């Protein structure tokens, strides 16, 4: 449940920052940008990448957390060692997978089901989603010194 709330918070935070990016960059501000709806959708998704980094980059780098996971005191660790995971692995393997699935799914709509498949893995005993399996990670409760 905590993971679900954390994921929901991440979507809300990233969407809001993406909207700010869209406003600031003006990538879909002009009539010409809507001549090709697919192209403007790609621009909007591209704004989501810096938005994700602005929001989560520092937390991922130092603590293996996204903003949503930080709010729910969760963190991502290496499945085998329990240690922190490399920032680049978190970014290019673990975070990129859902983005790729959504982007590809927007073209071939049935592939959206992969997001559900990914999500359904949470009901396994070890609660590792498909992207955790691919990245070799798991999500644990963060225990502070206090």
């Amino acid at each position, binding site marked *: 449940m905590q993971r679900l709330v954390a994921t929901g918070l991440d979507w809300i935070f990233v969407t809001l920052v993406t909207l700010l990016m869209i406003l600031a960059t003006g990538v879909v501000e002009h*009539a010409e940008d*809507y001549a090709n709806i697919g192209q403007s959708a790609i621009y909007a998704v591209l704004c989501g990448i810096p938005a994700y980094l602005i929001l989560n980059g520092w937390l991922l780098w130092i603590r293996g957390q996204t903003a949503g996971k930080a709010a729910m005191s969760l963190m991502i660790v290496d499945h085998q060692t329990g240690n922190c995971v490399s920032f680049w692995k978190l970014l290019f393997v673990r975070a990129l997978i859902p983005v790729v699935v959504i982007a590809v799914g927007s073209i071939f709509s049935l592939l959206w089901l992969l997001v559900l498949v990914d999500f359904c893995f949470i009901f396994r005993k070890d609660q590792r989603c498909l992207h955790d399996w691919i990245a070799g990670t798991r999500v644990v409760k963060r225990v502070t010194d206090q």
Partner: protein
Amino acid sequence: MFESARDCGSSEELREVNIFVRAAIFRQSEMGSPTVPLTKRWWHSVCLVVFGGLSAHGGLCETSEPGLKNFYSSGWGIDSANQRYQSPNRTSVSADNIDQLELKWVYQLAQKTPRSYPLVSEDTIFFGDSGRGLVALDRDTGCTRWTSPVEGVEISTAISPARMPDGRDVLIFGVRQNGVFAVDATDGTHIWRYSFTEDHPIPMYSGSPLVDGNNVFVPISSMEMGLTILPWYGCCTTSGAMGALDLSTGAKKWYTPTISDPPKKTGRHWLFVERYGPSGAPVWGAPTLDSKRGLLFFGTGQNYSHPTSATSDAIFAVDTSDGMVRWVMQATANDAYSMGCSFPGHPLCPDPVGPDHDFGAPPILSTLRDGRELLFAGQKSGDVHALDPETGAHVWRKRIGRGGLLGGVHFGMAVHPELELVFVPISDRETGQEKRQSAPGLHALEMASGETRWSRILQSRGCVGCSGGISSGIVASRDLVFFGDLDGRLWALDVSTGETRWQHDSWQQYDVVNGDQAQKDDEGGRYAEGGAFDAHGPMLADDLLIVASGYGNFGQRGGNALLVFQIKSDVPP
């Protein structure tokens, strides 16, 4: 290929092949178009073959070639003057036999909110079936002669018949966001497509094209109206326009924007988003041809942003040869309104906000018995204008009802030249901003003076969101005037008195003639649903009354039924 498939008989397999071949023809012909990306065309064709071909069973005709000798309209307005009057030699439906008018067959449209207007020949009804494409249906049985798949699929206009210089019969129509199409009337093969994207970044084709000789006149509105709900959109920079194409090639002849001044930056909101103006003045309706003067008349909508222009909510007269503006009559000045105004505090709602008093209905050119010609234009304010077509000067002006956002005259009026009457359908839907008394229904005005001959106020069914108003186009005959209301009721009133002569309630489920091609509902049945009557309205041809039910774009009841009625006595035993 297509002909041999047709000649081989009527087995189901061959019908499937027929669909396959037609899709292939579409792909082949579209590849010649320089503006359509190849990959998109390829995937579109694959989808058509896979999903369209597999579902192609019953509902197809034995003979696919339609008769093309007699057409019962030239486009949106029945005639090029947009009178929407069907003379007695073109319709036998009258007050004498209207009680024998019965439902003949119903065709299930693939999507709800039909926007097309039927074109009828001696044995075929052509209709824009959004989701499938342009379809040619047998008049007697409703079986499908051919389907011409169209990229963008939403055929939003009437269909105009034309003959090319090489003798080919073609059909011209607009697809909402994809341009104007010419297809071969014999088999639906694509000939050309044109979109005015060199002149307009996001044109929209909601007004019907008009064909005159080797010219195709194309009214152009803009997708920008819808974009104004996006608060990050830099509103607004586009202008409505009228364009002319060469019938033979689809090449542009001229393009006349309704706002000649280029948009300038006027400010910004939320720190980053820039505002522009003037903008808007879209052309929503079909143009009206004045062959004698060589003029084209059309109406414009409101501005989307400030500063406003002197050409919004106006009637234009332009030269058919080069598009030069002869005169402009602006009925409502300083009217700036956008879809953003639907949301309180929206940054793209102009300040001050205007009343949204478009001319959506095409003007009507008609001649009085004394030889005088008048141009009639209905406005969303509820005003009806009678203008001198030479100068645009007012002869009379009369306001009916309340008007406003969903009020007044929407899709179009009709005239009765012999009785010298203008029939004015009034929508006047409730929007919570009412300041005047509404008058939803039909009103008959004298052409010469604007005096009201009779008014027929229609009561709503009384349900939530219902309205007895008339938003759709209407059509008149010698002694009857036909229209559908927003509550899904189809009416025939006496032209002289406004009394009801016939009525049909379309809020029902209909059995359909599409056969296996019809889509199943949740319970596995193949039906069509009736809904609100709106958009282009009914058509009269011979002993037939044809109308699409189910336009639900503004909260009305949606549906997907193409209804064909026939006078029973004329049905062979």
